């Protein structure tokens, strides 16, 4: 057999080599370590360029290792499976922890995480302004800053329910980003089957998804509100008198914030449950929040009535919030209408959510 790389016209004729032990084997490129007989495999590839006479090459795979069958040992598990709350907590943490860590949790796009961070930092700007007013204490500047961002009924209401920038740019966008894919992703990818082939009821599935979305929104909206109030006390060195004076409307604002989180989550989750795309769920949410407000605003401008603001979830919440914090209402229609509107928005959204989740993975019923 010719050894291509070692062919030399000047060399004396070599002694005939012994015949190969295995006729299937070959010795190419000076390598003779192919051992086909023992069951090992090889791959042989030859190729050339140009006319192929001068630098003909052969490339041969090195000795292949034997295939290894994996050891198949099944060990039964004798542990005790946790109760319902343990399973529910697993669903909850899977969705919430995904915001901070990708490993083992729900996947959030890095841009979504960044947007949430920016919104959260944006919601903390009043704290920075209070801090600034303290550092430049005295003078008109400090007074202006305190008036604009210091704790009072209007600012507490505005921290949660102010239209610009919070309810125009921040909270609806935050909700759309967090809630949009909560259920629509499962609908699109069929991953709800992962839950429903386990001892997870549809109620648990829905409740935990809802809770995880609400907690993320609550962290940004409600927690930033609480931080704002607390930082004002700390930075200004306020005492018990301030606390007693402001606590009632702080609690009113807190309740308004929770109502906002619940209502936005309900509407967002309902839209996510009817869609197979997180994009359309998110856009649908923004359309409802902004669209209803624009329609109500146009009707007010044309007909001079605020009644149609009850169609706008934001305005209904804002109206209720004004009552809770104790500031004059911007709306002429009775408060009861807005309260009923908020209740209906929540009830209808949760009803839709529940009915859609009931049909998940249940085919052709």
């Amino acid at each position: 057999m010719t050894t291509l790389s070692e062919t030399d016209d000047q060399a004396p004729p070599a002694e005939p080599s012994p015949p190969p032990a295995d006729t299937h084997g070959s010795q190419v490129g000076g390598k003779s370590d192919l051992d086909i007989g023992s069951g090992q495999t090889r791959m042989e590839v030859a190729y050339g360029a140009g006319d192929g006479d001068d630098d003909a090459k052969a490339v041969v795979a090195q000795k292949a290792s034997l295939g290894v069958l994996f050891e198949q040992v099944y060990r039964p598990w004798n542990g005790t499976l946790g109760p319902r709350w343990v399973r529910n907590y697993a669903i909850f943490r899977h969705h919430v922890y995904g915001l901070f860590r990708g490993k083992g949790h729900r996947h959030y796009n890095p841009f979504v995480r960044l947007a949430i961070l920016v919104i959260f930092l944006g919601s903390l700007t009043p704290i920075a302004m209070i801090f600034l007013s303290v550092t430049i204490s005295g003078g008109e500047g400090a007074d202006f800053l305190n008036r604009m961002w210091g704790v009072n009924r209007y600012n507490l209401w505005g921290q949660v329910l102010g239209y610009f920038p919070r309810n125009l740019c921040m909270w609806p966008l935050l909700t759309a980003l967090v809630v949009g894919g909560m259920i629509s992703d499962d609908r699109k990818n069929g991953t709800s089957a992962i839950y429903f082939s386990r001892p997870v009821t549809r109620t648990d599935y829905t409740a935990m998804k809802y809770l995880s979305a609400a907690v993320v929104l609550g962290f940004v909206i409600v927690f930033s509100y609480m931080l704002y109030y607390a930082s004002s006390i700390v930075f200004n060195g306020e005492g018990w008198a301030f606390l007693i004076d402001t606590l009632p409307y702080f609690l009113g604002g807190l309740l308004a914030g929770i109502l906002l989180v619940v209502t936005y989550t309900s509407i967002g989750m309902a839209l996510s449950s009817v869609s197979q795309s997180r994009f359309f769920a998110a856009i649908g949410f923004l359309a409802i929040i902004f669209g209803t407000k624009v329609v109500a605003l146009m009707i007010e401008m044309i007909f001079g009535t605020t009644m149609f603001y009850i169609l706008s979830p934001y305005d209904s919440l804002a109206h209720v919030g004004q009552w809770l914090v104790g500031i004059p209402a911007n709306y002429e229609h009775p408060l009861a209408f807005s309260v009923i509107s908020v209740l209906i928005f929540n009830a209808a959204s949760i009803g839709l959510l529940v009915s859609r989740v009931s049909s998940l993975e249940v085919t052709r019923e």
Partner: protein
Amino acid sequence: MSSNSTPAVLIDHCSKWYGQVIGLNDVSLAIDGGVTGILGPNGAGKSTLFKLLMGRLKPSSGSVRLFGIDPWEDTAPYRRVGYVAETEKLYDWMTGHDFVSTLARLHGMTRDEASERASHVLEFVGLGDVQNKEIGKYSKGMRQRVKIAHALVHDPDLIILDEPLHGCDPIARTSIMSVIRDLGSQGKTVLVSSHILDEIERITEQIVILHNGRLLALGNLHAIRDLLDKHPHRILIRTEDPRALAASFVPEDPVYGVRFAQEGALEILTNDLSAAHTILPRVIFESGLKVTSIENPDDNLDALLGYLVGGDS
């Protein structure tokens, strides 16, 4: 095997209608322990059966019980059930280990238990060395095996596998079959569906055959095969001279006829497939003719179904 006297799967006169279309027609089954193959062509009712078992469909009539509990009403039996859906999607961004351990936690395991158990089942299905690789980078066979791993992570008593070999390469098929056989030998109840008889034959001898929503046959594969063997059979032999080879076969006992259905091919008709295969090598050798292939066109599920429903095989 289920720990009490109720079988793992009990289906009693169960029917499922989709409007005017019948998905499952008065099926009664009781299965407990070992591997059972659910066979049937596409549209036979295999997926309907599994959806009923997994509580995704409500029976139109009759009842379905897993460990004695109605899965439509109560998810409790799923603590003891592992399910591999045919088209189930996975979380592609997760590693195999993260995925399986996350799902273990949905069963109520602690973090350490879930992690340890995930590693074990991934080793069991042969994915130990790639368990820290993202699922999105897995091959089809590896994805199927990770699905089996997540179904096994809580050590279920009943494992339901819907077409687990679908789309897998031969190596993946072999390893998955090996996993399924091993689970059956552990005493677990394993239901595995396929529309390919050979696949099931390599896994189990206990089969259920569905056709058009009806239960056609239930029992040992060999017993059903024997029925098939008594049915007229064909053996297709491709050779250079079919007529000369036919002359050699005609005097043989098991052969009752020959046919030249295709050019360069001889079709032998027999009532006893085993006997015909016994004489085959001798007759071919004695004829001295070159034979390029020998096929059994009737040795498939269609033929078996054809026989069972009384049509042509």
